[in-house]
């Protein structure tokens, strides 16, 4: 059980699922069947993740990690012998938690997308197949223990994501998808250059032992110190740019708000919640252990970017009026924190960073889904089109508050633990950066609460209010009609559904403030039971990890320790005694 | 003495090359190319004499053949375009410039 190659299985299952669902959809299978099938596959994946977790824990507790074996549940076979490339998968603490996060998020995303309004001409079969394909690729990225395989999966991940954003997103989806793809691809190609460089550099080192170059993680890690610093710096640069684009760190972040905003809600969750973590994960997986000298040398630069991201992301987020863009900007700030933790080079900070990756996925996922539900009701992404939603939809408002608090990292939510760990872990080594980043926390509270206040509190207005014109097909009240209200008739051109906020008309006609009396004819109702059910796992996780993060930290910590050792710095204890 | 021939050949080659670049009529361009080929032949033969082996002369022979084959192919193509549009000027053929 311990050494069952779960990663491989978890890579294959969604891939097969994607193929099956895609084929069925192409053959005209009913949408419902394809949806259920896709959900089935994702649930299987979830079960596998749980089993894998258990197996990993067993392996860990039985001392598996201490005998030099870096990875559990490995699979490895020759792929391209000419390049010393092997198809090898395995799990360590970092990858396990990320894969678990994916496994949790994907079923939720599928369920949340159950009634998504797809652009004309698109089918659920295609959508879900692409989501599954994306899941497979993401599992591959996190589980890859060969740098080459990592790169391959890194690139392959782009394609389903590209089609998800470009094919199923909002009105400006094509430009956004293109921007996303080109950014990522450019990063990916620079990374390819670095992969090649790493291979060549390893070849030079290994040639002395009569071996040819390799891209195997374990081998590379052993010889990491023998690669000359000058080479390391170049190689590091390529990887770092790729990961900084992916993460995204500030000067390279501009694709994310567009892609995140235009992506359909479910896709956005995966994009912000998981996909972007590949960047920070890459730093941990490749830059730190394999290029330690360069990492030490260039840590200041990444830290600078991280802090910049924290502050800039927070400031810009505060200025956003588009809800989805707002969420992506908050994420940019959070990624700054994660990067800060990564490049602090202490076990606590790194553990915190990894935990932050998980927590951010959960919290932002929740927030994103909530925003999605709100937008699908209100038909507008603009903050100004909402007001007093809480009064109309108290459950939605409550959960939104929880998600906001989690995002701001209020104690008791999961983000608090990770943010705290990052900050106290970083402080001993990089006090100045840490203090600067702390400012971001304050800013986060400002922007988050401000948005919350504008959307949820105050008088009911904007999209929440029914129009004066009675249109027969409107839902009479909450919960009576499962189908969300169509925001607008489909555009005649058949292109993307041009969502014009219904409120515009209302706003100009002066019907802005309504009395409480008309609140029963609100345009949209509160969350329905199934929506609550969909969100409840995330809510549970937010709270659970807020109070008891130890199981996750147990998984992460050994790997974090190892990583710090790999970087070649002495670990600095956190001032408050760490978390172990 | 022989280097003079090389200079002549280079000059001829240059004249041909300039002709190709400057002239617009397909047939004239084509003739300039032939001039270039023959200029090369001159150098080949000169070099052959300088080195005292026959390689250059043999190459020159084959160059003649190739030139001839080029003439045939070129005439065929130019003739075809000439029949289609009644002009042999490269300038007139401008469908592909956009």
């Amino acid at each position, binding site marked *: 059980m311990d050494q069952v190659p779960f990663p491989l299985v978890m890579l294959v299952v969604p891939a097969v699922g994607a193929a099956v669902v895609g084929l069925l959809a192409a053959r005209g299978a009913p949408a419902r069947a394809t949806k259920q099938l896709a959900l089935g596959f994702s649930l299987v994946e979830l079960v596998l993740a749980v089993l894998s977790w258990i197996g990993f824990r067993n392996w860990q507790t039985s001392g598996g990690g201490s005998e030099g074996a870096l990875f559990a549940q490995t699979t490895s076979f020759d792929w391209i012998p000419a390049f010393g490339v092997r198809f090898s998968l395995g799990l360590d603490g970092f990858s396990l938690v990320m894969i678990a996060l994916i496994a949790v998020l994907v079923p939720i995303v599928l369920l949340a997308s159950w009634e998504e309004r797809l652009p004309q001409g698109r089918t659920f079969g295609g959508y879900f197949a692409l989501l599954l394909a994306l899941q497979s690729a993401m599992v591959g990225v996190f589980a890859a223990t060969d740098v080459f395989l990592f790169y391959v999966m890194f690139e392959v991940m782009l394609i389903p994501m590209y089609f998800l954003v470009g094919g199923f997103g909002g009105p400006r989806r094509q430009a956004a998808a293109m921007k996303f793809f080109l950014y990522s691809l450019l990063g990916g190609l*620079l990374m390819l250059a670095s992969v090649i460089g790493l291979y060549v550099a390893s070849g030079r080192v290994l040639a002395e032992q009569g071996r040819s170059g390799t891209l195997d993680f374990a081998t590379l890690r052993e010889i990491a110190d023998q690669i000359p610093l000058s080479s390391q710096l170049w190689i590091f640069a390529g990887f770092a740019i790729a990961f900084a684009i992916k993460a995204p760190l500030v000067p390279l972040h501009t694709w994310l708000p567009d892609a995140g905003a235009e992506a359909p809600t479910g896709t956005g969750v995966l994009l912000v919640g998981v996909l972007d973590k590949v960047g920070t994960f890459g730093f941990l997986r490749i830059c730190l252990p394999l290029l330690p000298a360069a990492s030490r040398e260039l840590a200041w630069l990444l830290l600078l970017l991280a802090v910049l991201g924290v502050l800039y992301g927070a400031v810009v987020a505060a200025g956003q009026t588009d809800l989805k863009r707002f969420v992506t900007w908050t994420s940019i700030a959070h990624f700054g924190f994660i990067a800060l933790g990564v490049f602090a080079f202490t076990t606590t900070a790194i553990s915190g960073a990894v935990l932050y990756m998980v927590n951010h996925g959960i919290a932002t996922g929740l927030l994103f889904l909530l925003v999605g539900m709100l937008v699908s009701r209100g038909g507008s992404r603009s903050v100004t089109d909402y007001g007093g939603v809480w009064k109309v939809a108290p459950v939605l408002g409550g959960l939104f508050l929880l998600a906001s608090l989690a995002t701001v990292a209020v104690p008791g939510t999961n983000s608090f633990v990770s943010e705290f760990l990052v900050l106290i872990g970083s402080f001993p080594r990089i006090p100045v950066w840490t203090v600067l980043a702390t400012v971001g926390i304050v800013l986060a509270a400002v922007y988050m609460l401000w948005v919350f206040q504008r959307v949820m509190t105050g008088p009911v207005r904007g999209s929440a209010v029914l129009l004066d014109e009675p249109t027969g097909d409107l839902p009479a009240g909450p919960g009576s009609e499962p189908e969300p209200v169509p925001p607008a008739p489909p555009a005649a051109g058949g292109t993307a559904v041009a969502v014009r906020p219904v409120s515009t008309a209302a706003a100009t006609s002066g019907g802005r403030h309504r009395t409480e009396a008309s609140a029963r004819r609100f345009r949209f109702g509160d969350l329905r039971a199934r929506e609550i059910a969909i969100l409840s796992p995330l809510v549970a996780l937010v709270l659970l990890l807020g109070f008891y993060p130890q199981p996750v930290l147990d998984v992460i910590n050994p790997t974090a320790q190892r990583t710090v050792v790999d970087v070649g710095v002495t670990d600095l204890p956190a001032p408050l005694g760490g978390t172990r | 003495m022989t280097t003079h021939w090389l200079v002549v050949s280079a000059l001829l080659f240059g004249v041909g090359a300039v002709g190709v670049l400057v002239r617009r009529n397909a047939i004239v361009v084509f003739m300039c190319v032939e001039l270039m080929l023959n200029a090369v032949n001159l150098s080949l033969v000169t070099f052959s004499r300088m080195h005292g082996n026959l390689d250059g002369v043999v190459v020159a022979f*084959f160059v003649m053949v190739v030139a001839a084959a080029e003439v045939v192919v*070129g005439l065929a193509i130019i003739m075809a375009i000439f029949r289609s549009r009644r002009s042999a000027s490269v300038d007139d053929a401008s469908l592909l410039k956009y």
Partner: protein
Amino acid sequence: MTDPSVPPIVAPSVDLVLVLPILVVLGAAVVGVLVEAFVGRSRRFAVQAALTLLTVAFAAVWTIVAAVGDRVGVTFAGSVSVDALTHVAWGVLLVLAVPAVLLVLDRTVEPGGAFVAAGSAPVGSAGDRRQNLGSGAGGGADGPDGAPGPAPMQTEVFPLILFAVGGMMIFPAASDLLTFFVALEVLSLPLYLLCGLARRRRLISQEAAVKYFLLGAFVSAILLYGIALLYGWAGSIRFADIAAKIAGDPGTGSGVGNDLLLLLGLALLVVGLLFKASVGPFHLWTPDVYQGAPTAVTAFMAACTKVAAFAAMLRVFLTFLPPVQDIWIPVLSVIAVVSMLIGSIIGVAQSDMKRVLAYSSIAHAGFILLGVMSLSERGASGTMFYLLSYGFATIGAFAITMLVRRGAGEATRLEEWSGLAKRSPVLAAVMTLFLLSFAGIPLTSGFIGKLTVFTAAVDAGLTPLVVIAMIATAITVAFYLRVVVVMYLTPTDRADRSADRSAGGSGPGSRTVSGAPGTLLETTTAPVSVVVPGPAIAIVLVVCALVTLLLGLAPSLGLDLLDVPLPLLS
């Protein structure tokens, strides 16, 4: 009178078995000419097509057998060198030639074949229209109403292709300057002609031919001058002698004058080669010719000519350049960068499918040049792998270009491809695969090609170039993506959709263009339609897609076969 100073002529040793594939191909070409002369018009097409296919296939098989059996050697008095590089080049070339020939012989897309039936009929004349509309001389595919269809194509195309293939095979094997030059011409001349033989859009086609021919002849002359100068410098036309002289010359040259000859000679030679491979600033012909030539020929050129040119470049570079690489690598670097950037940046602005592919080929030429420049075993085999993967993808892409039609002609404008994914999802998916391969996305053969070539380049210390190549790749992806966007994410316009419905019921083998005269006219109002591919194109598409995928998933299959050990024989 015989000069006593001239040594007596000695008959050179000739190993015919070594060069058998060349002999077979060229022999079959000659037989093809005779077939034109003697076989009746109605049977000519079948005979020619079979002859060409079988010949190429036989040569391919023989090459593989010979390569596996490691039959190597230098023959014809040192002018032809059949070594691993030659075998690999032949193998790649012939393997690519088979699908290219299949495209050429397809007659389902264009009734009567994609080539002109009577090249001598003036464009637009009554005779010209007659040959395209039917009721011309019989023998072509008959229309549904029993009236004779368009006149069958000129089958001289097949011998021409065989001659070109023959030349392409000699080119990388040539190990003296004379053979080199002759091979270059043997491969070029048929191509010039083939470019001008399109059935549709003949004016553009002929213009492409003239353009290609004039530029090609000009560059041949330049290359020839390079040959003359090299000979003048070394006193021998054999590669081995020249290489020995270069290597043996301390500091490359005893005097400035001599150095100048070597430098200029090599430079001009290289220019010629780069032109043929449509690299960098020597690419000017490429977009026009690719656009104008019949699409099948374009595919053939894009795939096979590149193989021949780069393989020859490998031999020339590997033979001559190592001692003087300090001078040459910077120059070539600039060229490679220019090629990559021209191809990628100008390509972004293109709106014609064939031109997009042409600029893509220019960019790819720049990438491939990196592999050649690394002057190593890995570089050589990487180059060949790249050519193989690029060749299959490009043939496949052009095959799909053949299928998308408006009226009677090909619909090559990008906007005409909008919504292709809805119309024919499989074609769009396959096209996407090819485009991803061009873009170098992992799990496609193009990625492995890039990987091998770039690895070799990094190994050779060309890291900055690789970085630029990566950026260029990213730019090229922009225009590949545009095609994908157009196919998948752009809806078709209404007129097309209605036409699609009416033509939608076309079963296998039937054509969406009707055979009735008057409807075949190329007009902008005609709907865009997708032809159901006939067996030949279907095979090509399947093979290209499979190879692209297979080499992406399991590249060792190809990489191991394409090993080029150094040094080369000469």
